[in-house]
């Protein structure tokens, strides 16, 4: 017994820290078009392999190849590019606005634009997303006014949530975008509950849950998978694996599981892993899963492999915990550039046109920003009255809040 090695604790570490040179050559990335596309009613047990691969459509030459390709028209692809570029321009302006002190906080999507923008295209009016704070592309792709988004960022008089929520915690019932909590993972099981309600009501609408790689460690994730699996809820459960949970690399939440998608296998649900920087792949898988849900075939778990190219939020500096070069070394590329290359390969786009488009989009966003700032920013202009702070705690203002509102001077 004495000769046995004493126990030691395993604490996973990312492969690279600041100062190291990232090298992704050891990571196996299947060639675009090589992963099969099962029929939507195929037995989930027969597609377990899809949890350990990466479904990709766009190849290095910008061509759409394989069984998941061919779903979108030139116009749809061009509008997809526009959505992603709008989101990127919006992010850039709001990030700058935060640095200028016009708001307290911001969270950008840099590198992850394809996921929410392409997913939204698979949904129908009435479907409901239960998003995290990094899916504003769902709003943009559904035509939600950017003006309202900015007013939310500035907590001004036109903020739809009346200055009550941290910037980026949007809410829009009309656009199928459930109020963002700010607490992590809580929305995942709520999405399942919403989907169960739709099924109970013999409705045709489906729900979509969103979560990040880090938050899959929360209990809500497991509750969601149990309930979704048990009741075969018409829900698509998305995991956006952007490699980093603030400063914690994805291996801390993933543990010994090969992939995040593999978490779905124990629950007997289809689990697909997809290239999150490939607009076409994201859309194709989203449509497959949404169709499954709509046909009452039950839930699907999807892991989007992507990379958070920016900081977690404006309060974060990634240089403190990961190499600056990591983002450029990321092998799945940039979603905007990849879709651009595809449109060029299709012969409907050009470098020149793209440049013009980029400038035009930025002008558009700046014009909206001016309009929003004319209403107010966090510390200037018109804001919801402090009187409003007491509303909506309950449907009716109870006597004790009436007294407190008087005490507050309103």
């Amino acid at each position: 017994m004495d000769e046995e090695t004493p126990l030691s604790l395993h604490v996973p570490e990312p492969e690279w820290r600041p100062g190291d040179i990232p090298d992704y050559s050891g990571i196996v990335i299947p060639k675009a078009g090589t992963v099969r596309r099962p029929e939507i009613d195929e037995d989930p047990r027969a597609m377990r392999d899809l949890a350990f691969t990466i479904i990709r459509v766009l190849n290095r030459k910008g061509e759409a190849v394989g069984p998941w390709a061919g779903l979108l028209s030139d116009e749809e692809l061009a509008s997809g590019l526009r959505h992603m570029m709008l989101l990127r321009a919006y992010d850039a302006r709001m990030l700058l606005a935060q640095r200028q002190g016009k708001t307290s906080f911001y969270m950008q999507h840099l590198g992850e634009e394809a996921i929410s923008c392409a997913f939204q295209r698979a949904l129908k009016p009435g479907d409901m997303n239960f998003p995290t704070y990094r899916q504003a592309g769902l709003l943009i792709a559904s035509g939600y006014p950017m003006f309202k988004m900015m007013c939310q960022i500035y907590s001004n008089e036109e903020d739809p949530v009346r200055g009550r929520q941290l910037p980026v915690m949007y809410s829009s019932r009309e656009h199928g975008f459930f109020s963002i909590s700010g607490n992590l993972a809580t929305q995942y099981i709520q999405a399942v509950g919403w989907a169960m309600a739709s099924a109970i009501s013999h409705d045709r609408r489906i729900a979509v849950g969103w979560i990040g790689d880090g938050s899959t460690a929360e209990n809500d994730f497991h509750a969601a998978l149990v309930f979704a699996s048990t009741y075969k809820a018409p829900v698509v459960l998305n995991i956006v694996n952007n490699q980093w949970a603030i400063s914690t690399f994805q291996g801390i939440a993933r543990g010994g599981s090969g992939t995040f998608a593999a978490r779905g296998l124990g629950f007997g649900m289809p689990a697909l892993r997809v290239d999150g920087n490939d607009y076409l792949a994201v859309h194709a898988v989203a449509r497959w899963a949404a169709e499954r849900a709509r046909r009452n075939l039950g839930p699907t778990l999807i892991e989007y492999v992507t990379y958070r190219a920016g900081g977690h939020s404006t309060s974060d500096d990634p240089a403190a915990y990961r190499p600056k070069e990591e983002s450029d070394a990321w092998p799945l590329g940039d979603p905007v550039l990849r879709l651009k290359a595809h449109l060029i390969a299709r012969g409907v786009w050009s470098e020149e046109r793209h440049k013009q488009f980029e400038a035009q989009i930025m002008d558009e966003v700046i014009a909206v920003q001016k309009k929003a700032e004319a209403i107010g920013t966090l510390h200037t202009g018109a804001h919801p009255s402090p009187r409003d702070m007491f509303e909506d705690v309950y449907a009716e203002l109870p006597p004790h809040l009436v007294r407190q509102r008087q005490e507050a001077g309103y």
Partner: protein
Amino acid sequence: MIEAIQNALDTAMGEDERVVVFGEDVGYFGGVFRCTAGLQKKYGRTRCFDTPISELGIVGAAIGMAVYGLRPCVEIQFADYMYPAYDQIVSEAARIRYRSAGEFTCPIVIRMPTGGGIYGGQTHSQSPEALFTHVCGLKTVVPSTPADARGLLLAAIADPDPVIFLEPKRLYNGPFDGHHERAVTSWKKHELGEVPDDHHVVALGQAAIRRQGGELTVLAYGTMVHVALAAAEETGIDAEIIDLRTLIPLDTATIHASVAKTGRCVVVHEATLTSGFGAELAALVQQNCFYQLEAPVRRITGWDTPYPHAQEWDYFPGPARVGRAFREIMEA
């Protein structure tokens, strides 16, 4: 009281097909306390069903359903099991209306058996009401009679906001005044045991005066209403016993009017003392009735210990302890 609760659920499900009932063992079996007996058979498996053992899942799914437009009324098997769902209750259910500026709402009812007196030990006896009353956006209800259980539950299900419905489990099968040495009696023989047949709704936020009195105001809810009634009877003190019924929203008018009349106030609850709901009541009474008070407000509660098993009756604030406090405050 079990029949009254079952009847309220039956009534609500019959009148409104948006009402769904689920939780651990509530489907085919009808609940470990039988409060959902027969509902699955009557309304089908998609409106009354069993869930995995996940309180977080039960409440989280209920929230999603309420956001969709249903009216879920879920059961947590014991209030002591509520903690895994606490984040969903506090951060989510209670705040969805507020954070979305009314765009999304969360009309759910979370039923849970509360309190001791059944030799349940520290994991089947707790009274966590103060953990809910401290959370803005929630309403917290504790009935003390079958009629109230039915009427308040119907009001809770119809309410547009999330309601925590705490059912004193020692009252399920009959009234209980703390005399554990005496034989258990059924609600059928009790003067408060009658349940009206009609659609009798008891509005949230209205206290009931269970005993008129002029010497002392007693604020109680749930099982402790019956203990206070016994203590008044046994001490001969002319206590006015107020059954709060709803903790949030609180009927402060009834409380203040009574204390202004009697000049003395005792708060009785089974939950632990420190930071309990009694602290809130005592603070409100001293703030609003300071010049009418002839003695400090007194709190009679469970001790600040976990709820013990074998020592249950030394923990439980029974009629002897409550009566002693009545006498002491009358002499103060």
